[in-house]
């Protein structure tokens, strides 16, 4: 063996030794520590990078602008999950004992990782916030006290989309006899809306066809030929990653009009539309938040964070997912603030934060104060309802920008609530959980 190889091996061994002995990256005591399970590489790296840049930018803003949450500085550490369930669990285990108060609340940003953590979080007393993904039936806080699918869940999205399509057709009753295709990512995520859409189809009398796209979905010739043959009135796109862009470009290729396509919020970011170029023109997407920079909070981020060179990639500012990251951080910070109102102005533990999230009330007045205005809807949570608004807002891709195409609206909330409770009750019996609200 040559000398340089030996040297490299020795260096590696040394590095390994150092890593084991090394004290964990220094955290300042007395801060509100946030554990961040992020992903910035791999097939969904672009999506993750936008979301988590926004998330961290907001935390930095709170520190820079007002010196933390009521004076308690925020510190954080990001761990790369690569959107991989096993790595996500490892990151969670790594971050959960950091600092004296633990990682506050975890945003897994992946349905798979959420499923992996649902059993672990209650045991560790760490709340999970799943903004627009994860287990839909976790909206029932009596069965899932530690999980918060805030804003809207997939079933809200599905009924919202049906409502939107109904409005375009001139009323829900006009959907009778219409044909709608659900083009979905063939995974747990893509199967989520099936029961609701089937119920909607039975109720409103439209014909529903489910067409799966195998992972990764970078080739959709046969799916779109099927759609061409079936001649649907609308296509609902339940895509993720490259699948959404491919769907748009293949729709153009077979001549299906894009303004008859409605995506959900994971298929409705600039990442999806810009990749497909002009093929995306006219495409609608349900959204949890508006895109754009015309919000006080975005201006603040540019002034307090980016101007000081502390931000992430400036190109991401104002994009759909970046704004969503901003909002996710805002709700988390507000939850901590709420908890501080009860437990005192010091770093909150996971348990205290959980109380804060459950009693979170961000009304329009507060949103205006924070500079969010109409970017996100008001949110009020309770034990019964861990979801909150259930509202979606549609945006249309026009001239290289997402523009609002509707007001905040909701689909069939009564039906969704009923199905949520049924599904949660089934889970409770399977797992032997006694449903009930947590005290304190």
């Amino acid at each position, binding site marked *: 063996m040559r000398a340089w190889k030996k040297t490299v091996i020795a260096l590696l061994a040394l590095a390994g030794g150092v890593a084991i002995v090394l004290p964990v990256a220094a955290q300042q005591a007395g801060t509100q520590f946030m554990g961040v399970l992020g992903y910035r590489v791999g097939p969904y790296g672009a999506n993750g*990078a936008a979301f988590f840049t926004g998330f961290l930018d907001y935390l930095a803003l709170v520190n820079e602008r007002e010196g933390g949450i009521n004076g308690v500085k925020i510190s954080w550490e990001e761990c790369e999950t690569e959107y991989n369930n096993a790595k996500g669990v490892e990151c969670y285990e790594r971050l959960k004992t950091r600092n004296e108060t633990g990682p506050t609340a975890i945003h897994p940003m992946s349905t798979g990782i959420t499923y992996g953590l649902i059993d672990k979080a209650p045991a560790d007393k760490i709340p999970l916030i799943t903004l627009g993904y994860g287990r839909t039936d976790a909206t029932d806080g009596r069965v899932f006290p530690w999980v918060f699918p805030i804003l809207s869940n997939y079933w809200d999205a599905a009924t919202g989309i049906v409502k939107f399509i109904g409005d375009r057709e001139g009323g829900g009753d006009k959907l009778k006899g219409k044909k709608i295709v659900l083009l979905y990512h*063939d995974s747990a995520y893509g199967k989520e809306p099936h029961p609701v859409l089937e119920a909607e189809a039975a109720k409103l009398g439209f014909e529903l066809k489910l067409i799966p796209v195998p992972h990764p979905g*970078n*080739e959709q*010739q046969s799916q779109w030929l*099927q759609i061409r043959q079936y001649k649907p009135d609308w296509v609902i796109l339940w895509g993720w990653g490259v699948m959404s862009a491919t769907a748009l470009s293949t729709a153009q290729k077979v001549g299906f009009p894009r303004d008859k396509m409605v995506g959900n919020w994971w298929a409705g970011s600039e*990442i999806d539309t810009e990749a497909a170029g002009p093929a995306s023109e006219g495409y609608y997407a349900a959204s949890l938040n508006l895109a754009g920079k015309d919000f006080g909070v975005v201006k603040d981020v540019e002034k307090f964070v980016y101007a000081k060179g502390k931000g992430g990639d400036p190109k991401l500012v104002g994009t759909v997912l970046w704004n969503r990251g901003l909002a996710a951080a805002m709700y988390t910070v507000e939850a901590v603030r709420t908890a501080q109102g009860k437990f005192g102005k010091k770093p909150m533990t996971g348990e205290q934060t959980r109380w804060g999230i459950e009693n979170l009330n961000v009304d329009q007045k507060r949103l205006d104060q924070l500079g969010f205005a109409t970017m996100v809807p008001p949110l009020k949570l309770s034990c019964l309802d861990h979801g909150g608004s259930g509202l979606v807002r549609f945006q249309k891709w026009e001239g290289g920008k997402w523009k609002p195409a509707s007001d905040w609206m909701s689909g069939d909330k009564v039906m969704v609530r009923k199905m949520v409770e049924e599904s949660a009750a089934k889970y409770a019996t399977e797992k032997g959980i006694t449903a009930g609200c947590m005290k304190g």
Partner: protein
Amino acid sequence: MSFFFEVLIGGLLAGVMYSLVALGFVLIYKASGVFNFAQGAMVFFAALTFVGLQEKFGLPFWGAFVLALAAMVVLGILTERIVLRPLVNQPQITLFMATIGLAFFIEGLAQLIWGTNVRRLDLGIKDEPIPFLLERFDMALSGFDLIAAVVAGVLVTVLAVFFQVTRVGRALRAVADDHQAALAVGIPLKQIWAIVWSVAGFVALIAGLMWGARNGVQFALTFVALKALPVLIIGGFESVTGAIVGGLIIGASEKLAEIYGVPFLEWLVRMLFNISLTLGGIELWFAYVMALLFLLIRPEGLFGEKRIDRV
């Protein structure tokens, strides 16, 4: 009936896109016996470098193309120098593993240089149904696909000429035949490998441009390699013709299976087990299963070289 032909032709054209990727595998396997798993990463790297150059320096198409090609050549030479040369004479599987390591490396490098943003790549070719065919035969065939087919045809011709006529090409075929004999007659093995990896880089660039123009330049470009694998099995690892024919077979049969096979399978399940299932998405594995059946009949692929085992 016209729908059937639409599916068939659409499938054949989709197959051409697979062939474009498969070609890169074939070139390297032919010359060095390495199953280069990093080909997908190379496609990604090439396309990303191309759009990155365009975006950052505002280069015109040809400028970016030439520079991206230069980057691929450098990458090819470095790969030969750093990865392959120390691993000469190792078993195939070790080389295969090294190329997976190389794939990780290239993916990391590409994103480190150019970032993770998804980018649009505009070649100025319209990916829309050709109006004439749409009106006359009610067939939605994209002009883009036809151009891709032409590009693939030109590429194969150029490669064939390169292999048959030029001096380097002849040396290459000699190397493919027998490394040691080639060395013995004075063919510079290392140079030949560097050339082959560079040519594979060129093919990767072309494939990257075609795929990237359709789906955007993003990490998922690395997945196109998976589509090329069954093409290789059917066509044979060593045959350029095989890559094209294999691509056509896979493309067409995959689409036909998805559209006509799925309803049949669903009917079959209903008859046999009396349950109704939605079974879409058989595309995911159909190509592999078909390749498997092919192999049972011809274990070395359609155009592969027959192997004789001797004790």
